[in-house]
């Protein structure tokens, strides 16, 4: 990482003595100014809170602001400092130990909901399963987006995670969203603990149980119309070369890098979740599957895996902004349609009725068709 220019730091200091601190994690002046403003608003809110969290700090807002800026300068994500992050139209609670939701994920979920909510032949109840749910952001946003357009359909949503902390936070986020007046969500939402990697036929540890056992134990259905997942997908080498200091230093590695297995190389480790997720989706008889990925290479590998299990009628790749028109021809795959703008971000598969719900028409088996 290049060092910050002294001139920039000095200029920042003349604007506000706290800005140079924020320049370290933010890199640009505009971003640092925004963060300083948000920190200030946060401190103002704390100061005005009727039930003060900490009276002593409340009396010294300047000192508090400075302390938060110093924390931020150490690389601690602003979202952990402020305690929330926006995800689509929702503002969700975040806490150290659970991955901060990303806007790209929100963009895919919202786009999926947009495609489906206009479908003519939706069943009266739609079931959505989110594997590796973290803060619970995906089911909560899907519920909100879909329900604001279609209140005539029942939704059942379930989030699954291996981490106690994540499941606890997801439940609190559900309560938070339900308290929020503008929220449209009214689906039946729940979160349960399970290990999506554990093999039901292998040696069973019951803590946490495998997915099937967990569904059974919690009296949840086996069959789900839509399966979504944003699993850990970063390879060990990319973890060191590509993630930022703030991600490495403060977000849980469990949420980012799949576990190592003897004999797996770097890439195989990054892809480790996808075969299990596709199997889970097949067992659930999902009509639509949406899996987030790191980049176009991984997208191609996952799409190829999905084609190999030969149950899908169509497979395509979405970029960061799937709702935007695809302008660039860069990276257009000859095998799978690529939609949207930005980096390749997820792989969408569908079969049977899923094609109608998505408005994709019934494509030929395994979608070897290419776009003209």
């Amino acid at each position, binding site marked *: 990482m290049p060092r910050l220019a002294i001139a920039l730091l000095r200029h920042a200091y003349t*604007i*506000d003595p706290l800005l140079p601190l924020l320049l370290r994690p*933010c890199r640009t002046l*505009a*971003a640092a*100014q*925004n*963060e*300083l*403003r*948000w920190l*200030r608003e946060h401190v103002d809110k704390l100061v005005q809170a009727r039930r003060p969290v900490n009276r002593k700090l409340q009396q010294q807002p300047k000192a508090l602001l400075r302390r938060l800026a110093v924390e931020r300068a150490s690389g601690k*994500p*602003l*979202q952990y400092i402020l305690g929330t*992050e*926006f995800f*689509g*139209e929702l*503002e969700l609670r975040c806490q150290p130990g659970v*991955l*901060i939701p*990303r*806007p*790209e*994920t*929100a963009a895919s979920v919202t786009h999926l909901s947009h495609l489906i909510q206009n479908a003519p032949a939706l069943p009266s109840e739609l079931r959505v399963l989110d594997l590796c749910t973290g803060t619970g952001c995906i089911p909560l946003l899907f519920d909100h987006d879909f329900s604001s357009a279609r209140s005539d359909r029942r939704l059942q949503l379930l989030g699954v995670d291996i981490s106690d902390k994540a499941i606890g936070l997801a439940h609190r986020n559900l309560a938070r969203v339900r308290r929020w007046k503008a929220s449209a969500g009214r689906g039946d939402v729940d979160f349960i603990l399970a290990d999506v990697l554990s093999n039901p036929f292998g040696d069973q540890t019951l803590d946490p149980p495998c997915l099937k056992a967990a569904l059974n134990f919690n009296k949840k259905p086996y069959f789900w119309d839509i399966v979504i997942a*944003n699993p*850990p*997908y*970063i390879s060990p080498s*990319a973890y060191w070369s*590509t*993630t*930022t200091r*703030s*991600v490495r230093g403060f*977000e849980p590695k469990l*949420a*980012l890098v799949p576990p190592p297995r003897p004999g797996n190389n770097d890439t195989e480790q990054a892809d480790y979740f996808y075969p299990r997720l596709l199997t889970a989706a097949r067992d659930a008889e999902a009509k639509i599957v949406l899996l*987030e990925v*790191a*980049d176009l290479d991984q997208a191609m590998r996952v799409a190829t895996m999905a084609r190999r299990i030969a149950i899908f009628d169509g497979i395509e790749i979405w970029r*960061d*902004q799937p709702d*935007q*028109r695809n302008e660039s021809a860069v990276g257009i795959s000859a095998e799978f349609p690529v939609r949207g*703008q*930005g*980096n390749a*971000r997820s792989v969408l598969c569908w079969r049977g009725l899923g094609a109608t719900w998505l408005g994709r028409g019934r494509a030929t088996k395994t979608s070897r068709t290419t776009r003209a």
Partner: protein
Amino acid sequence: MNTMHWICRSCLSRAIRPLFKLRVRWQTTASATESVPPALLARARAVADEHKQLAEKLANGFDTRAAKKLGGYGAIVSALEEWDKANESLAELTSLIHDPTSDPELRELAADDLGATRTSLAKASQNLTTSLVPIHPFAHLPCLMEIRPGAGGSEAAIFAGDLVRMYQAYCNRHNYRSTLLKYENINGTSEAGVPLSEAVLEVNSASAYGVFRCEAGVHRVQRVPATESKGRTHTSAASVLVLPSLEENTSLENDFEDPESDYYIDVNEVKVEVMRAKGAGGQHVNTTDSAVRLTHIPTNTVVSMQDSRSQPKNKEKAWQLLRSRLAQARREKREEEMVALRRSVLGVAKTGRGDKVRTYNWGQQRVTDHRSGATVHDLDDVMDGGQTLDTVMEGVRRWLMEKDVEALIAEEASKK
């Protein structure tokens, strides 16, 4: 004023200062309510004439078109009658009072009556005016005010910030709901005295556009900047752009879908950029960059928003601003043709973004509006958004109204 005799000297000298300040206000308010602009009056008379002719025509046989037109004129004609009546009685009373031959008792009675007659004349004038003036199609809408520094470096930027606070105070006093959609000084805060780069103030009350549209244009400031060591007066400027604001839930919502509407935007012609799309993205980074930039490709209009931590909120605000800007541009283009016509007929000045509309002079503690020609002296009260600002704005609205009527008359004349 007859109580004046009983006031002692020291009280009098205390009273004189505010009186001096108030004089201007009195004059303007008095004239604003009691008299009717000549152009308006001329039009009212013309309407009354036509009304009479139409009525005669109708008496000789029914004509649907004439009947309809007659109905539309009714309000104007009766307002004019009221006004004439009030004027007459006022004239009578005044001549009575000034006539040295009239009976003193009668004179006193007349003096007593004067107040009530004045009031009814003011009311009649107002009625007559409102019955005639074409109402701006967007007058009922809330508005967005965009304020930016013009020529004059950081002094201009400081003044732009002063204007923002002036309008905010004005809104507070009038109970208009105002929100800063965007406030960017180089500091990222809204402190006073820090140079502003751009502000967008939303006045979210019905009819705000009708109130504020007279504020559009270049506002000039003459003062010694805080940064000036030699005490020289500088002249700088800030520009104010006023746009009717359409939130999603206004009655014009359908217009968003209607290609004929000014507010229609073909979504395929807008490029939406989220700033963080650079780099690996996804799980690799956790930056807070929620900025959104919209580019309307055909006109190359760019709007960016980064105030909120929520990307959808930034996007929504950006769309709102883009729609308003494009609609204004379209309206202006259409109106330009009209204005060209009016100019050729009358030389009416346009009140758009380019023209210098007002000067704030600190040395003389005065504010002069170049359109209405009015000067007030309580500069501080203006900058505090006080009643003196009301006076100035009323004056401009009145001027604008007269111009509107002149233009209307010119237009009708050119049609004949």
